[in-house]
C-alpha cells in the first residue's frame, strides 16, 4: 500500500493542535495519480482540518508532507496552489460581488503588459463553463446566481488551475442529481488525465459511485485506508462512527399511524411571492409531518420562509386555526406558535459569538421582549435539559457556538425552537452536511415531535429522508407546487423523481 509508484502526495503522522483540542493525531493520507480518493468521517473527525493542512491554510504541529517524494510545507493557499493543489470548499468561497468570469480566473487573468484582457478572459471563462455544460452570462455578478451555480463556478475555477491534486470538499451538498452526475463526469475526465482527486461527501452512494479508495478518520485519528470495492457501506459506517448503530436500522422504518384530520393547524390559500414562489395552496395538521421535495432552487426554502414571515407574501391568504393571519415579521409567526430553522445555520441560524446557553434561549427571550429576561437559573435548566436531550457535544453551556461542529450547531438551533414549544415547526434542511449519527438522531427527534402532536414541515434535498419521515409530500418544481402525495407504501423515490423530472422535459 505504501510502496505505490504513482503516489503524488504523501502525508504521514500529521498532527494539528488547537488550543485545548487535538484536531489531528497521527493521520496518514496517500494520494495517487489518476484516482478518486474519498476522505470519510463524521463531523469533527478532522476531515476539514486535514484539508486545510493540505491546502496550506493551517500549519502542522507534527508529521510529514511529501509532494512527489519531496518534503514540502506550504505557507499559504497560494503556495499550495502553485504546487498544484487546488480546492473547492464546502461553503462557496468566492467573491459574490465580482463577475463570474473574474471568479473563475482571478489571479490568473490573461494579461498584456500588465493589463487584463477582459475579452480573452470572458472567452476563457465561457470555455471552462462549457466544459461543465454551463452557459452563463459571465459578466454578471456571481451574487445573481443560485448557490448551485456558484458551486459549479468554484469547480470551474479549480479545474482551470493546472492541478496535480484536486480537493472537492462536499462539492455536491448544494447540487441536484443531474448536476452531481455532470460533476462526476468531470471528475472521471480529470482522473483519466492523471489528477489525484480528494472527494469529501456525506452522501455514501455518491462516494461508492465515484471513489476508488477511501481514508477513514475518527476523532482526529486514522481508522485506515480501504479500497472502495472491499468495504461495504455498512462496514464503512461502522468504521466512521466506531460502533454498529441500531439507529441505522431505525432509519428504514416508515412512520406508523396516520394523522387524525381535524381542522388544519395552518392553511395557505394561493399564497405566493413574486420572484420567490408561485401561489400555492397547502394545509398542515397537528401531528403531521409534511415533506417538501424538489430540486434545489425549486422554491422549497422560499415556501418555508413565506409561512414563517421571513419573507412577506404578496398574494393569497394564510390561516392559522381557521383564522386569517398576516405575518409581516418572523415574530408575528412565532406568536402564533410557528418556528423555523433555516438551512443556512451559520449565517441565519446560530449566533456564533454567543454561548450555547444564550443561543438556546434566544427565541424564547425574543418573544418575551428585552424587559422580561429569562432568569439565569431557568436558562441553565433549559440549556442543560436540551444539551442532554439532543446530546449536544461538548456538553458545555458556556462554550461559544462557533466552536461547535455543524451537527451540534444544528442541534443547538433545534433546541432554541423546541424551547418555545411551537405547534408548527418548519425545518429547512436540518440534516444537510452533518454526519450519519447526528442525522439519524435528528430524524428520530422530528418523528417523536410529530408523535407528540407537533406539526412539522420538513424540507430536505434527500428524497429518502422525506419519504421516511413524511405523512404527506408536497413536490415543487421551478418555483411551483406541482403535486401533493399521501405517503402510502406505493410511493417511492422513483415516483417522486418522475414528478420532479418528468414534467421538466415538456
Amino acid at each position, binding site marked *: 500500500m505504501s510502496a505505490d509508484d504513482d503516489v503524488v502526495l504523501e502525508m504521514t503522522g500529521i498532527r494539528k493542535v488547537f488550543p485545548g483540542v487535538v484536531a489531528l493525531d497521527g493521520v496518514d493520507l496517500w494520494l495517487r495519480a489518476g484516482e478518486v480518493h474519498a476522505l470519510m468521517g463524521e463531523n469533527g473527525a478532522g476531515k476539514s482540518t486535514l484539508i486545510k493542512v493540505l491546502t496550506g*491554510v493551517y500549519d502542522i504541529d507534527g508529521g510529514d508532507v511529501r509532494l512527489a517524494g519531496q518534503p514540502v510545507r506550504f505557507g*499559504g*493557499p*497560494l503556495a*499550495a*496552489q*502553485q504546487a498544484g493543489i487546488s480546492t473547492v*470548499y464546502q461553503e462557496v*468561497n*468566492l*467573491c*459574490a*460581488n*465580482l463577475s463570474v468570469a*473574474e471568479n473563475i480566473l*482571478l*489571479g490568473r487573468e490573461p*494579461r498584456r503588459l500588465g*493589463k*487584463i484582457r477582459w475579452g480573452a478572459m470572458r472567452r476563457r471563462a465561457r470555455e471552462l463553463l462549457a466544459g461543465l*455544460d*454551463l*452557459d*452563463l452570462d459571465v459578466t*454578471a*455578478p456571481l451574487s*445573481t*446566481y*443560485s448557490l*448551485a451555480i456558484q458551486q*459549479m463556478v468554484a469547480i470551474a*475555477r479549480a479545474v482551470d488551475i493546472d492541478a496535480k491534486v484536486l480537493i472537492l470538499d462536499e462539492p455536491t451538498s448544494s447540487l*441536484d*442529481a*443531474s*448536476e*452531481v*452526475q*455532470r460533476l462526476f463526469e468531470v471528475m472521471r475526465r480529470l482522473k483519466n488525465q492523471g489528477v489525484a482527486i480528494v472527494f469529501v461527501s456525506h*452522501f*455514501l*452512494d*455518491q462516494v461508492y*459511485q465515484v471513489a476508488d479508495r477511501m481514508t477513514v478518520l475518527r476523532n482526529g485519528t486514522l481508522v485506515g485506508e480501504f479500497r472502495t470495492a472491499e468495504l461495504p457501506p455498512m462496514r464503512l459506517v461502522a468504521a466512521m462512527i466506531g460502533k454498529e448503530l441500531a439507529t441505522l436500522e431505525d432509519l428504514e422504518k416508515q412512520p406508523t399511524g396516520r394523522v387524525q384530520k381535524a381542522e388544519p393547524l395552518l392553511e395557505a390559500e394561493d399564497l405566493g411571492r413574486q*420572484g420567490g414562489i408561485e401561489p400555492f395552496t397547502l394545509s398542515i395538521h397537528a401531528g403531521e409531518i409534511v415533506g417538501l421535495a424538489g430540486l434545489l*432552487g425549486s422554491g422549497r426554502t422560499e415556501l418555508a420562509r413565506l409561512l414563517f414571515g421571513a*419573507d412577506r407574501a404578496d398574494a393569497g391568504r394564510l390561516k392559522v386555526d381557521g383564522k386569517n393571519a398576516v405575518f409581516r415579521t418572523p415574530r408575528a409567526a412565532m406568536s402564533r406558535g410557528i418556528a423555523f430553522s433555516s438551512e443556512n445555520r451559520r449565517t441565519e441560524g446560530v449566533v456564533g459569538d454567543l454561548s450555547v446557553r444564550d443561543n438556546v434561549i434566544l427565541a424564547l427571550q425574543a418573544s418575551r421582549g428585552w424587559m422580561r429576561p429569562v432568569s439565569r437559573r431557568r436558562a441553565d435548566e433549559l440549556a442543560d435539559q436540551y444539551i442532554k436531550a439532543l446530546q449536544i457535544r461538548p456538553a458545555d453551556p458556556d462554550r461559544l457556538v462557533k466552536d461547535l461542529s455543524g451537527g451540534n450547531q444544528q442541534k443547538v438551533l433545534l433546541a432554541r425552537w423546541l424551547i418555545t414549544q411551537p405547534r408548527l415547526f418548519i425545518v429547512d434542511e436540518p440534516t444537510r452536511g452533518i454526519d450519519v449519527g447526528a442525522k439519524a438522531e435528528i430524524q428520530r427527534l422530528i418523528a417523536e415531535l410529530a408523535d407528540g402532536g407537533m406539526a412539522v414541515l420538513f424540507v430536505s*434535498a*434527500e*428524497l*429518502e429522508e422525506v419519504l421516511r419521515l413524511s405523512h404527506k409530500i408536497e413536490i415543487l418544481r*421551478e418555483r411551483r407546487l406541482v403535486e401533493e402525495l399521501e405517503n402510502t407504501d406505493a410511493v417511492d*423515490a*422513483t415516483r417522486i*423523481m418522475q414528478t*420532479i*423530472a*418528468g414534467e*421538466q*422535459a415538456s
Partner: protein
Amino acid sequence: MTTDTTAPDQTPSSIIGRPKRQRWQPDRQHVPVIATLTLLAFMYGIGVVNYEGFDDIQVVLNIFVDGAFLLVVAVGMTFVILTGGIDLSVGAVIALTTTLGATLLHAGWPAGVVLPLLLLLGTTLGLAMGAVIHYFEVEPFIATLAGMFLARGLALLINRNSIPIDNGFWVSVAQERIRFDKGVFISSSVVIALLVVLVAAIVLAWTRFGRCVYAIGGNADSALLMGLPVARTRVAVYGISGFCAALGGVLYSFYTLSGYSLHAQGLELDAIAAVVIGGVLLAGGSGYLFGTVLGVLVLGLIQTIITFQGTLSSWWTRIVVGVLLFAFIVLQRVVAGKRSVQR
C-alpha cells in the same frame, strides 16, 4: 441512496444555466453613480437658475482648483474603502506633509529632495498602518486613528506655528495656470489630480491588483482561499492612501503656500463623505472611482452654492452640508438601496 435515479439527460441544462434576474434594469452596481450624477446636474441647474454668473465655466473649473487636493486624497481613500477598510489618518498626513515640507524648504533643502521625501514618508506611514492592520489584525479604524495621532503629533512637534513657503519651485508650480481662454484656467494641481484619477481608475479596472482590491472587499476569506495575494494587496492599499495623502498634502501646500500642523483638520471626513456620496459601499467591494470624482464635485458644488448665496453665516455652511449630505444619502438609498435592504 437513490438521489440520482433520473437519467442526467432528462434535466435540460438550461434550468440551471439561467441567472435569477427577472427583467432588464440598469446594472445594480451603476445605479448609485447614476443617482449621484443626476443630483449633481440638478444642483448645478439650481445654481445656474438662481445665481448670476453661476453658469460661467470657470465656476466649474474652480471647483477642481479648490478641490484638487481633496480629489487626490479621496482617490486613496477609495482604494481603502473598496477593501472594506477606512483611513482616518489622511488629514493628519496632510498636516505633517505641509509642516515638514515647509520646514525643510525653509532650511534650504532643494525641492527635488523634499518632494520625493514627503511622498515616501506618506507611503511608508501608510504601509506601516497596513501592515499593522493585516498582520496583527488591528481594526483599520483604530490603527489609522493611531496613525492620525502620530502624524498630527509629529507635525505639532516639528512646529506649532504656520510656516510660509517661499521656495522658488513651490511658488512657481503653485502659481502656474493652464489657460484655455480669457479667464478660463486650471491650476497645475488639477492636472496632477486628474492624472492620479486616471492612473487609479486604470489600476482598479484593468490590473490584477485592482481586481484583488475588489475581491478583498467582497470577501477577504474567500480571496485568501482563492490564492490571491491578500496580505500584499491590503498593505498596499494603505500605502496608496498614504501616498495620496502625502501628494494631497503637497498640493495643499501649493494651494496655501504654507505648512501648518493644524492644516486639513477633519479632512478625512470630507474624503470619506466624497467617497460615500460617490456610491462606494463602505463595506467594500462595490463602487467606482468615477463615483468618487463625482462625490468630490458634489462637496465642491455645495461650497460654491453657499458662497454664491453670500448671506449665510459660517455655521449655516455646516448645517447645509449636513442636510445635503443627508439628502444625497437618502436619495441613494431610495434609488439604489431598496433591493439590498431586503435581500
